């Protein structure tokens, strides 16, 4: 019951925080466009007045891509460095904007103005950056230990059975996914708690996050695990919709853009729902949060 209540409350809170969701979506579109639009210009220049683009109407044509020659190498470098920049910018932006989001979500019926949102974002930034950095480093290390090491070991192993390595890798990924769910929970509890405090300290917040996660492990984990599965399924659905969709008219391309941005908006909303559900669960368990 506690979980359902958290879901319901989280969902309501996330809807109330729509302004925050719009800000997150807009920032994402803006930052990605900073990389994608110059890239589009470069691609356009590489193809010039060629009609070979007709070959791309049916989808990606690897021969055409390879024929780009030096331009393809430049585009690849541009894409990879752009992606690195975006991950970095996204990480910082998430640390910033999550402050506002969590602040909006802390009361179920609270509506917040944009100014308040950014004020809260700024106030929580350093603490949230610390929480995100520490949890991300832990995830990377655990990823290496839980998935990287077994995969590396298996690739050098002449096992009799081919099924065994396959199963080991699958289990590794599942274990990693489970650990990520737990660490997400820690981060969310920590951030949820942090926005209620005047004095900002990422270590104290993380302490609370770990404490709360393991004190209320079963309902918390189950709730987070289900939300993560929803997110994974949603991502697969997006891939299924956008991947094979190949509009051949200008209006179709515009529709593709609108639908893809709507889907991303929903994705941000689901993430906010996650934040809201964790906040709600925390408030249900101990509204005064005097655990630390």
């Amino acid at each position, binding site marked *: 019951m506690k979980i359902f209540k958290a879901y319901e409350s989280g969902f309501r809170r996330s809807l109330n925080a729509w302004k925050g969701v719009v800000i997150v979506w807009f920032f*994402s*579109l803006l*930052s*990605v*466009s900073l990389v*994608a*639009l110059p890239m*589009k210009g470069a691609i*356009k220049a590489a*193809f*010039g*007045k*060629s*009609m*070979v*683009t007709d070959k*791309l*109407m*049916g989808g*990606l044509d*690897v*021969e*055409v891509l*390879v*024929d780009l*020659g030096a331009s393809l190498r430049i585009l690849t470098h541009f*894409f990879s460095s752009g*992606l690195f920049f*975006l991950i970095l*910018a*996204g*990480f910082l*932006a*998430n640390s910033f904007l*999550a402050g506002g989001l969590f602040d909006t979500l802390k009361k179920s019926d609270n509506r917040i103005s944009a100014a308040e949102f950014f004020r809260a974002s700024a106030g929580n930034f350093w603490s949230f950056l610390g*929480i*995100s950095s520490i949890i*991300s480093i832990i995830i990377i290390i655990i990823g290496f230990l839980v998935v990287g090491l077994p995969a590396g070991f298996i690739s050098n192993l*002449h*096992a*009799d059975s*081919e*099924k065994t390595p*396959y199963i080991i890798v699958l289990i590794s990924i599942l274990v990693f996914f489970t650990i990520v769910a737990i660490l997400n929970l820690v*981060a969310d509890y920590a951030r949820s708690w942090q926005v209620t405090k005047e004095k900002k300290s990422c270590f104290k917040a993380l302490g609370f996050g770990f404490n709360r996660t393991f004190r209320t492990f079963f309902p918390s984990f189950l709730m987070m695990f289900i939300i993560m599965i929803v997110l994974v399924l949603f991502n697969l659905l*997006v891939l299924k919709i956008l*991947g*094979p969709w190949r*509009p051949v*008219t200008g209006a*179709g*391309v515009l529709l*593709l*853009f609108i639908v*893809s*941005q709507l*889907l*991303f908006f929903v*994705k941000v909303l689901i*993430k906010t729902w996650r934040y809201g559900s964790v906040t709600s669960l925390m408030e249900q368990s101990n509204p005064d949060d005097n655990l630390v």
Partner: protein
Amino acid sequence: MLNLKKKFIPQISQIGEDNLQPICADKFDLREILLTTDLMKKTLLTILSLMFINCVSNSQIINREPLSPRITGYRIEAKLNTESQTVVGYMEAFWVNYSSDMVRDVQLHMYMNAFKSNKTTLYSEINSKASLKETEKGRIDIQTFTAADGANLLPSAQYFSPDDGNLHDSTVIQVILPQAVKPGDTVSIKVNFETKLPSRIRRTGYADDYYFIAQWFPKFGVYETTGMRYRMTSGWNCHQFHAHSEFYANHSVYDVKITVPNEYIVGTGGLLLDETDSGDGEKTLTYRAEDIPDFAWTAWPGYKVFTEQWEHVKITLLIPGERLEQVERQFTAVKNALEYLTKNVGPYPWPHLTFVDPPAKGSGAGGMEYTTIFTSASFFKIPVCFHVPEMVTVHEFGHAYFMGILASNEFEEPWMDEGINSFWEERIMDHYWGENSGMIDNPLLRISDKSISRISYVSSGSRQVVSNNEYSWNYPHHTYSMMSYQKTATWLYTLMGIIGEETTNEIFREYYRRWAFKHPSGKDFINVVNDIVRNTHGDEFGPDMNWFFDQTLYGTGICDYKVSDLHNIKLESALKDSTLVDTLKKNLPAHDTLYKAVACIERAGEVMLPVDVLIHFTNGDEVLESWDGKARYKDFVYTGKRMIEWIKVDPEYKIRMDVNFINNSMTQDPNRIPLRRFTNKIISLMQFFVSAFTL
């Protein structure tokens, strides 16, 4: 040319321990023998009885008639020792001197010695300086080597390295014969040998209890007569074992007995004639193979065996038990290849075919061909949309034709087996699995098999350092695969684009008719092309197609045709100035402006090929121009009311050697929709990706 019918062609079965004398029909006269002594009469009886046995045993077992001249044959008794990872063997073999020369030596491959140390030619060529562990070493030790009359030949045997003079390489052995072999005579040898298998499988070896055993017995080189292939003088063609080369041998008959522990499942390139249980935990399997250039086999307790029939061919698949979901895929692939090659090249002449999907631990044996046995390559749970197992199966089966039946020299002209076979593999894959999805067929990404070859060739920075006309181990800058597989397949597609698909098929049918079970060279293939193209198209492409091969096979140039510009120039000023045009102007309404429309085409590469140029005008007219493609540029000029809207050189992308399709066309109004769509998807992809990386 020898008349084979007049010769007594020895079969391997006649080389019993009691009958090792060289035998040739024109070497004895029965009436003369009858008139000699009693001893001779007894000899005659012995010979007659042996001849009777021969008559019985010489009868073809697999095919009614021999498909190839019986130049070499082998009878081998081999025992696999799974404790010491060795094969202990006894071999009787013959070689018939079909030349008109007196031959003073025989040369044999001793290829397992390539694994003897890290200083062999094999390991030198792969730049492996790390010393080999004892288990990684392989070798073949000859214990006894005698002639038919029992004479010990070992003292007159010596290793030598005809290709690189490497003193550490012992993969070719030369045996000086006590007496020169006369034309028509037969050399028979008896060899006791022990082959130690290497633990790191590189086409041959073992991994744990998995064995793939190839190049495991002493095998005759090919004695080439003057005029054969490129020979100026007769001699042995017996190359060393190289890292990037396959093999060359005579079509032979093989009678092979293999003894293995009972639990082992064996697959070979032969037909199983008999299986006996020796009662001591071992079994002996007797195989017969005819008209194949090599005999390889595999043994592993983990195989599951499946058989299916395709017309006259019994197909056997050996596959790990964990990959059973791929059985149907594998059979479909091999049957498709059989059907396509039978229809477009020639019949598959053997009634049996075995193919193997090695387990992961034996993956070093994957993707290799020994005519009637070949290995595929796959892995557990490979998605159906990735056609890699099918592609490997189709490719390796194709070698039954391009190397097996049409036994070109893989050392000296690797394009003839790998390149031609890749061309057919790509045609088969794209025919049966989809024109655009022969390799990958997923809604998100589709790739044809023929694209892979063109991509590899076009994107290679070393595509111009060497021509296709090179020995396999001499390709510099790691260009062996790109040149012999991908470039060849790409120029064969280009040839097909020029002369047409049906003419191409007819070329290969004729190539099969002329050269099946012989050793064709590149020039023999070109001669077939020239004959068929001349018969089909007359002089349309000139007196021969040598101009094509000079540029593609023997040349290093690239092909690149481009549209450099298109103009539509108003002729208004000319109309005003010219009285002649003034007359015209009077007749023209105001909106009927005249244009000089120019399509500017350039040849940016060195290769000159005939190309089509399609020009589309604003009023919907289209003109298809043919250009011989020889000049550096060509302008097509049209004067009239119509303007050029777009131009395409090689509009159907038939010239697949063209290294850049992007510059093949030009339009006033490019279609930007795919680019906008692509950008939209990139934006979404990045948004979701970055979001996944943030908490």
